[in-house]
């Protein structure tokens, strides 16, 4: 594969100036160093949340939980 295909590319997105100012205000004390990094974080959160909702499934059933509890009892972790 060509090395260029591996590069993470960046693009510019325009947002209204007042919104950028609000973001700057909101960023204070958060550890983010620029509006871009904060906006990237927010977008990642939003996208990740939507994707995980779409994919969401029950972690484990009641039956599975009972089996886990039995193993935990066998190992002495619970009474």
């Amino acid at each position, binding site marked *: *594969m060509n*090395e260029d*295909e*591996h*590069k*993470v590319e960046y693009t510019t997105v325009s947002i209204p100036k007042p919104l950028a100012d609000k973001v700057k205000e909101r960023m204070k004390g*958060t*550890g*983010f160093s620029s509006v871009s990094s904060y906006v990237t*974080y927010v*977008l*990642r*959160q939003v*996208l*990740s*949340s939507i*994707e*995980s909702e779409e*994919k*969401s*499934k029950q*972690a*484990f059933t009641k039956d*599975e*939980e009972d089996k*886990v*509890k039995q*193993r*935990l009892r066998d*190992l*002495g*972790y*619970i009474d």
Partner: protein
Amino acid sequence: MIKPHGNTLINKELPNTEKERILGEIDEFFSKKVNPQTSKVIKNISFGVFSPLEGFMDSNNYQYVLKEMYLENNVAWPFPIVLDATEEETKAFGIDDNIILMNEKGTPLAIMNISDIYNFDKKEFAQTIYGTLDRNHPGVESVYNLKEKLIGGEIFLLNEPASIFPNLDLKPMETRVLFKQKKWDKVVAFQTRNPPHLGHEYIQKAGLTYVDGLFINPVIGKKKVGDFKDEVIIESYQALINEYYPKDRVVLSTFETEMRYAGPKEAIFHAIARKNYGCDHIIIGRDHAGVGNYYGPYDAHDIFDKFPDLGIEPIKFRSFSKCSKCDTVVNDKICPHPPEMQNYFAGREIRDALQAGKPPSLEVMRPEVAEVILRYENPFVE
């Protein structure tokens, strides 16, 4: 309880009927042997310790992680989890083929659907992840020892790799049920690769003071020469917990993975794994997962500032010591006394005492812990 990283606890176990069907047709698949470290990766992916990973990284995720420390799906991840292969091996299979990953004894561990076969730059990998190309760094050496190609793809578990300590091997689903059963809402994790001295006990109990439970989770697996042997770490913790900890507030369980010594990046990785186990806090000490002088003593603290979306909170401890004036364990934020009054729990001094067959001072290590270590003729990895 905290959600798993990426919001879904991954489980790559196959239904029995499907597993039996594949195992019955095993000779029809190309198979590839993997080393014990990769076997552990397969297990960790399969049971969700590495959630949201569902397999070995393809080139897109590899590059995103190297460059951004995020996966392509926008979830933080600090270093590549990859499967290497020889040029020769990659000629035997192609994209969308299913191959069997076997352990060194030939037991099938997983079936992998190949989604990518790609070249990679070892120098770029080592420099980006470890910040050095010095082959004395064990992580760098591991990268240089990888074969020339990487293969990516989703895996499904066929047989669970054996545990080193089966009675202490809890999977994320099990720890989550356990914490719930114990009514622990807030849990702090403690990562370790050493037997405990009084400084460790101090930070663990300090962390526990503010939450419901303490999850002591030693890393078990390949370590560098001179590190403590796994069984020494486990038995010394059992001795400490038995004598000095409230048993309803502590869980000891193993985390089977190799140490990469990636310092700050490994601290993020350790935090993610513990989040998947159900912990919402993790104790990060001085030079966490460091080796030699490759990282600053608090680099592993600072890196968390770049990941405000990680979910799990670091409890950052600076260096701690036994102050002769305060007559207790302190750290530099809470003690005004000068360095000459501090005993810094120097690893070297503890090792020297143990190697000479003597218990370290009572100011440094509990006698029950020292007794366990001294039972071993050689407690260190050779």
